[in-house]
């Protein structure tokens, strides 16, 4: 069992559990330590609920907004098969959002409130989607490397403590494996194609490398609250560890194709067995996540348009005698 029953509220690390019933908290932490899942109606610390809602909701928003830069390329994807495959992928992403929103709902935040927080800019989504997909090659790099990053993150989180989130992620990971293969196939096709195709994919890779390095979030040195969230199995791996895992798996595959990564310091350190790289520009990351990126305004405006134009259909089907009940699982 973790910790003892006494919580010193003056201890800075305890701010997250201040005011919680120490006995219930101890039982809760013991359950997680035994590897058992937490289910929606279980007692849970306020901060556990809050952090999970924030995380699952943002994950859902990322799936919805991520469908926009990729969806752009459906009509212009080269060849019928790729159009069909990209359409299936984008459809998957929107379906993932449905699963994630459902999991977040079990924690007590309604889907309407989540959508409101997205379209007013209050909730965030993955920062990479504030960048545009200039060419077909950009869409291929997204499908391969952004989805690869997402899989690393999701496989880790699928072992977390909250039952509904784990179940949603298990389903999602199965579908993501097709996205990864599809993306890789497209990148390989371009990289082994004509000189113009090679140049196109190289340029897209160069453009996307900084956002990809940002993908796992700020360095652990900056990130707060990590310790307790890892104990609660809300956060399953540190940002830097996931970034290392990504580099380990994908840099060799990128180099296999003779493509160049725009970081002269990127190399595997033989001593530490970890990757050295130039620290990503975290000021740029903050600037973009707070609305300053090339596509923030467009993404939210398009989402609001979709919401507004579909509203009459939802209203027409609305039945005033029905009542909302929080979903069970």
């Amino acid at each position: 069992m973790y910790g003892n029953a006494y919580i010193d509220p003056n201890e800075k690390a305890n701010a997250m559990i201040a005011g919680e019933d120490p006995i219930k908290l101890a039982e809760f932490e013991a359950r997680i330590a035994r590897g058992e899942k937490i289910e929606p109606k279980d007692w849970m610390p306020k901060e556990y609920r809050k952090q999970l809602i924030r995380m699952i909701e943002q994950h859902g928003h990322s799936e919805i907004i991520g469908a926009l830069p990729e969806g752009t390329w459906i009509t212009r994807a080269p060849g019928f098969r790729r159009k069909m495959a990209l359409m299936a992928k984008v459809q998957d992403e929107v379906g993932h959002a449905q699963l994630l929103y459902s999991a977040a709902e079990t924690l007590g935040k309604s889907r309407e409130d989540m959508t409101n927080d997205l379209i007013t800019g209050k909730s965030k989504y993955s920062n990479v989607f504030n960048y545009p997909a200039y060419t077909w090659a950009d869409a291929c790099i997204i499908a391969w490397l952004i989805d690869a990053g997402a899989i690393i993150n999701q496989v880790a989180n699928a072992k977390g403590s909250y039952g509904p989130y784990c179940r949603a992620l298990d389903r999602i990971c199965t579908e993501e494996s097709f996205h990864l293969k599809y993306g890789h196939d497209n990148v390989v096709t371009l990289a082994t194609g004509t000189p113009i195709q090679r140049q196109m994919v190289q340029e897209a890779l160069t453009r996307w490398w900084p956002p990809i390095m940002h993908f796992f979030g700020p360095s652990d040195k900056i990130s707060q609250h990590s310790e307790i969230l890892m104990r609660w199995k809300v956060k399953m791996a540190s940002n830097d560890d996931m970034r290392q895992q990504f580099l380990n798996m994908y840099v060799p595959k990128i180099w296999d194709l003779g493509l160049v990564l725009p970081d002269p310091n990127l190399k595997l350190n033989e001593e530490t067995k970890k990757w050295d790289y130039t620290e990503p520009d975290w000021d740029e990351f903050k600037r973009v996540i707070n609305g300053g990126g090339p596509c923030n305004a467009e993404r939210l405006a398009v989402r609001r348009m979709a919401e507004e134009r579909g509203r009459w259909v939802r209203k027409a089907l609305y039945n005033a005698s029905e009542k909302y009940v929080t979903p069970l699982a």
Partner: protein
Amino acid sequence: MIKSLDPRVTREKIEENNLIAPLTPMDNWETYEVFHQKKRGDQHMHVGIVHAPNPEMALLFGKEQYGRRNITANIWVVKTAHVFASEYDDADMFETTPEKQYREAGGYKVMDKINKYKKANKG
């Protein structure tokens, strides 16, 4: 006006600050629990929820969300409001289940007695 790389978006002439009235409760309707049967003969398994205005639409969304990739024989939808569930806090009511050996095949061991009997009555 949004000028996008995507000509379809630009054509929509969307204002950048196209603020809309917030969604209100039930805009996305109530929820249905979805049960999925992989093939005939299998149990239906709970797989998640859908938001829908009526059972017919719930079946349609259930098919889209849970039957699109999986092999599927059949789907059920049940209003969340109609499910009555036990409390996890009451899990102790299931605690004695494994102790009730008298209702399990393994709870009956007769070979010892038979062997003893046979040995005693030999010859």
